[in-house]
């Protein structure tokens, strides 16, 4: 897709999103595949901005979201009866993983003597487990398919991280609604992650990471276009794709000259060597299952159950009436 046609597309999306908001049809549009914007991350182009102290996508993301980073109330209480809590507020400059203060980062890896850089952030799943399973319904999806957390109502239980196939959202304690309810007993802060610059997408603009990438390694476009671009690029470099099927399908497609099994093994090995057990460095396992794959079966069962109940009742009443007559 040329830059011009991409700009035209985002302009169209902006107009359409505005119209949808006015007509309160946003919820319907969220499931309209024509509105879906995806992204392509080309690992053959990304060099991790080696010459710079911070990769451009990371600094652009930080700059754009600075005002939304948490300012916790201290001292922070542990998660009773546990003795720990999650506090990243003293590590705001950390860029080697996802944190509440760093919503995208770049993995620097050596695979078979080759250097590879992998920008990581939320994959914006087609059917996000985090959104579906948040017990407080505080995760939403924009008209363009960007998955976002509402920080006003998030309780910070971190279930979204537990159910996310990649453990993406990160928690900051000492901030959020839980402080006003029962801070010692329930909740644990607020969860933070990339929201796909949903506000920019709604205005027909590209997310900050893509705008600032000097190598054009990150591309946002309609999902169909992204799929086509990714397939073409993978063919061109005789490479591999990640994100189309993983986790049940996502809005982010990686293209790499190196197989993702090897990239994943390198991430795991690096974490293992450094005894890195802290959250925020997602795997890249090509066998990442869809955590919501049973949902349609259970929905059907929930809809069939009342029919089965009616049938059983009718049969039983008929039998008992027959018995009473005898």
């Amino acid at each position: 897709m040329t830059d011009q046609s991409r700009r035209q597309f985002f302009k169209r999306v902006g107009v359409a999103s505005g119209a949808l908001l006015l007509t309160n049809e946003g919820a319907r549009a969220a499931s309209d595949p024509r509105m879906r914007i995806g992204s392509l991350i080309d690992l053959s182009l990304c060099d991790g901005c080696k010459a710079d102290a911070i990769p451009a996508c990371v600094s652009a993301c930080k700059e754009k979201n600075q005002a939304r980073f948490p300012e916790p109330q201290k001292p922070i209480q542990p998660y009773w009866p546990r003795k720990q809590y999650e506090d990243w507020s003293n590590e705001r400059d950390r860029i080697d993983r996802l944190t509440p203060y760093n919503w995208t980062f770049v993995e620097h890896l050596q695979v078979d003597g080759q250097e590879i850089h992998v920008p990581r952030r939320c994959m914006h799943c087609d059917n996000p487990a985090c959104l579906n399973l948040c017990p407080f319904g505080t995760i939403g999806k924009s008209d363009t398919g960007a998955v976002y957390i509402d920080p006003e109502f998030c309780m910070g239980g971190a279930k979204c991280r537990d159910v996310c196939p990649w453990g993406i959202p990160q928690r900051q304690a000492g901030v959020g609604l839980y402080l006003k309810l029962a801070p010692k007993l329930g909740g644990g802060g607020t969860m933070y992650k990339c929201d796909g610059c949903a506000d920019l997408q709604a205005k027909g603009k590209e997310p900050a990471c893509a705008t600032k990438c000097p190598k054009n390694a990150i591309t946002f476009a309609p999902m169909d276009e992204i799929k086509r671009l990714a397939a073409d690029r993978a063919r061109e470099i005789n490479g591999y794709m990640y994100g189309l099927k993983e986790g049940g399908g996502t809005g982010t497609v990686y293209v790499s000259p190196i197989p993702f099994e090897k990239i994943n093994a390198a991430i795991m090995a690096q974490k293992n060597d450094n005894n890195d057990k802290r959250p925020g460095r997602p795997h890249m396992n090509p066998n990442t299952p869809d955590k919501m794959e049973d949902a349609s079966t259970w929905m059907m069962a929930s809809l069939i159950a009342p029919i089965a109940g009616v049938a059983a009742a009718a049969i039983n009443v008929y039998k008992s009436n027959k018995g009473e007559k005898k």
Partner: protein
Amino acid sequence: MKKITRQSLSNRIVHALTATSIFALFFTGFGQMPVYKRYMLTEVPGFAWAGDYSITLWWHYFFGVILIGVGMYHVVYHLMRKEFDIIPKRGDLKDSWLVIKAMISGKEEPPSEKYLPEQRLGYAFIAFWIVVMVLTGIIKAIKNVNGYNFGPEVLFWAAHIHNLGFFMLILGVAGHLAAFLFKPNRQLLPGMLWGKVCACYVKFRHSLWEKGKNEADKVLSKLGGEDEACKDFKH
């Protein structure tokens, strides 16, 4: 044998399945909150699975489906048989107070139909919240399917009403079980477990229950009449 049938096999199965599924739904539903790991239930031998959301969700769905099926069976079965004994009646609130007051004070309580007035109110309360839970639960089940998106307001309210319903149902079930703190009510337990209650109890407490009273009279007449058969009966 001084017993008469109070609950049919169908009613007892419905009650048992409803109770089992509601308790299982309480446990698995509460497990959808991030609490079992935090409060170390997962460290109790045999409960490690409780911290796995995919397992608790599977069982939550499973018991949800049972509850929906059984609930629908219950409604249709009684509608078809035109059995409405458990539906609240005008004045139930006042009569409930009179029955409870009598149980506390030990004085004579007003006669009841098949169900006590507070049982009818309790049923309505629990049934109402079950319906709320089923409806919000179905919305949640549908939205979990790829391609369905109700929008953030619907998700937010479905989640919070479902959570509120959880506490209301716990309240309802606690109230239901608290009824057995009163000794006179304990006579009703075998009725729901094995189907039968003492004919003397029916004559004494449920004298407005026409069918039960007639059956009790038949049973007691074979034992020398109510006065003779029930002379040792203590309420």
